[in-house]
């Protein structure tokens, strides 16, 4: 499936807050249907990279291209059209706290589709059922647990059947079984709808189960130090830091600097 033309291209991206450079010279390509993992030690700018990709922060330098079109060079109206093809799940869920779960999912549908109220409600129930929250339509985000909020956030991210789903640490705070179900759901969505996923995660189990492409950010060198399929990365990458990460601090690779 990687034989297609690139779907998302990040080119020589430099991310900075004011004069503080978080990461520089990031270049990687994501194909349609990829499950792309962003990994790295804590504080290296994984979430910042995600925010750059979804257009919340303007890059200090470099470009993010979607199907060959640069996000930041496009006029705002085109950017909005692009944004509609994205779904985003935040670390905390970021549900709108003044609305019930069903209303949260209904909002993007009401904005961008011509569906009737009953149809929207029906679809919201379906999305909630997909993440295992059947019957919670009329709960407010403050009335459910953190893990449930996260799943509801996922349901909202999937509301418009987006082309690309961005997940910021989807399995953090989920119990192992829910985390496993989430992985299954991701694989299922890719198989059925051809959705592309960009996932920030630390979960090694997830990384190896679902990821087929990835980038590894290093906080010290402030750039990416490895990219590609995580399984291949584990087998081939000679960087001790990447190896330690992928083996939970296991022994260094057999041949150094091979």
């Amino acid at each position, binding site marked *: 499936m990687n034989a297609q033309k690139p779907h998302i291209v990040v080119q020589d991206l430099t991310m900075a807050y004011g004069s503080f450079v978080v990461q520089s010279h990031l270049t990687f390509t994501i194909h349609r249907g990829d499950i792309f993992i962003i990994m790295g030690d804590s504080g290296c700018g994984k979430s910042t990279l995600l*925010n750059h990709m979804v257009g919340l922060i303007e890059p200090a330098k470099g470009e993010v291209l979607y199907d060959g079109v640069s996000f930041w060079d496009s006029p705002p109206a085109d950017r909005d059209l692009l*944004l*509609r093809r994205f779904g985003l799940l*935040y670390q905390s869920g*970021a549900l709108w*706290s003044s609305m019930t779960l069903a209303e949260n999912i209904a909002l993007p549908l009401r*904005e961008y589709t011509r569906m009737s109220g009953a149809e929207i409600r029906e679809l919201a129930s379906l999305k909630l059922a997909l993440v295992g929250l059947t019957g919670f339509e009329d709960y407010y985000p403050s009335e459910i647990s953190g893990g449930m909020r996260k799943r509801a956030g996922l349901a909202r991210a999937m509301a418009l059947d987006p082309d690309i789903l961005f997940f910021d640490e989807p399995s953090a705070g989920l119990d192992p079984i829910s985390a496993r179900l989430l992985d299954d759901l991701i694989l299922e969505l890719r198989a059925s709808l051809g959705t592309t996923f960009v996932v920030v995660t630390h979960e090694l189990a997830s990384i190896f189960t679902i990821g087929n492409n990835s980038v590894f950010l290093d906080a010290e060198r402030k750039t990416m130090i490895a990219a590609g399929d995580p399984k291949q990365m584990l087998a081939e990458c000679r960087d001790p830091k990447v190896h330690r990460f992928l083996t939970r601090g296991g022994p260094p690779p057999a041949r150094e600097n091979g």
Partner: protein
Amino acid sequence: MTSSADRNQIQPASSRCCWTVEPEGNGTIRLLFEGDWKLDQTLPKPAEILASDAAEGTLRKVRFDCRALAGWDSGLLVFLRDLDRIAGQRRIEIDRAGLPEGVRKLLDLAAAVPERKGARRSVERDPFLDRVGATAMALGKSAAQTFTFIGECTVALGRLVTGKARLQRSDLLVFIEDCGVSALPIVTLLSMLFGLILAFIGAVQLMMFGAQIYVADLVGIAVVRVMGAVMCGIIMAGRTGAAFAAQLGTMQVNQEIDALKTLGISPIEFLVLPRLLALCLMMPLLCLYADLMGIAGGLIVAVWMLDINVVQYLNQTLHALNMSHFLVGVAHALVFGVLIALFGCLKGIQCGRSASAVGEATTSAVVACIVAIVVSTALITFICNVLKV
């Protein structure tokens, strides 16, 4: 540990910590720990130990003896890390062999992850001129943000008028209720008291000339023209402006506003417009209501203190007021409504990502609203004066 005395004590009394330094010759000392080295004890500073008599001469090596050590916790670890640091500076070798195994392991663990370069924050204060410059730049930036925000709101209003922006009707109704009906009790109380006070102060002066009846003119014109609107403005700044800032600030903290943006929904159209419209619709009405209550307050003083009867007072008020007074008052209220909604929402949207940032946003929203109300009152009064309204 089964005796009742032990059970009553949460922690058994610890023995005092002591230390002795034994010179071993050749620049080596042995440090003997005794008793409990715990956080609840006053532990010695490593520097005093190294400076003690026994450690005289060129010190090369420190060894430890922990046979008499009764107990330890993080207190000992902090002491040893401090000692390590000083020893590093003075090139003294530390031999950890004599330490309990647990202590050694924890110290190794604390040293396992090296400090990240550039992660430690410097506590130095920037030079004065730097700070002045930074403050000036921050001021410029916040002014630019404010104007951008006002511009965005204007564009959003334009889109609403031309039918391109969709208004959340249910939200609008909730906000109308919130800054309309729900504000009535406090507006009633404060405006009526204000009318009362004004009438009372005026009455004392006017009675000296036997011109009590003009209390009606005084209260009527003052309240209708300016003060009703100003009272409403200040009440709504504290009530609604603060609420808007806190609501949007909390949404910012929860990334709810980011969630809107990434869906391509403009936070201005979705969050600010309904609040702005609700306040603009309700402020003039609240102002008229406050006018009425202010006049009622004046009436109470007139009837009780001045022996003016109700009909007389109302007639005099009607005679004193004309339409332009009401219009000026309503214009004030409308301007205040816009200012309160704008500043409340602006401070909320600019809010940082912490609980204290929400508090700051709320405070600065109220302050900004009240300053804006007073300044705009002065401006409107000046303009009315020039236009001879």
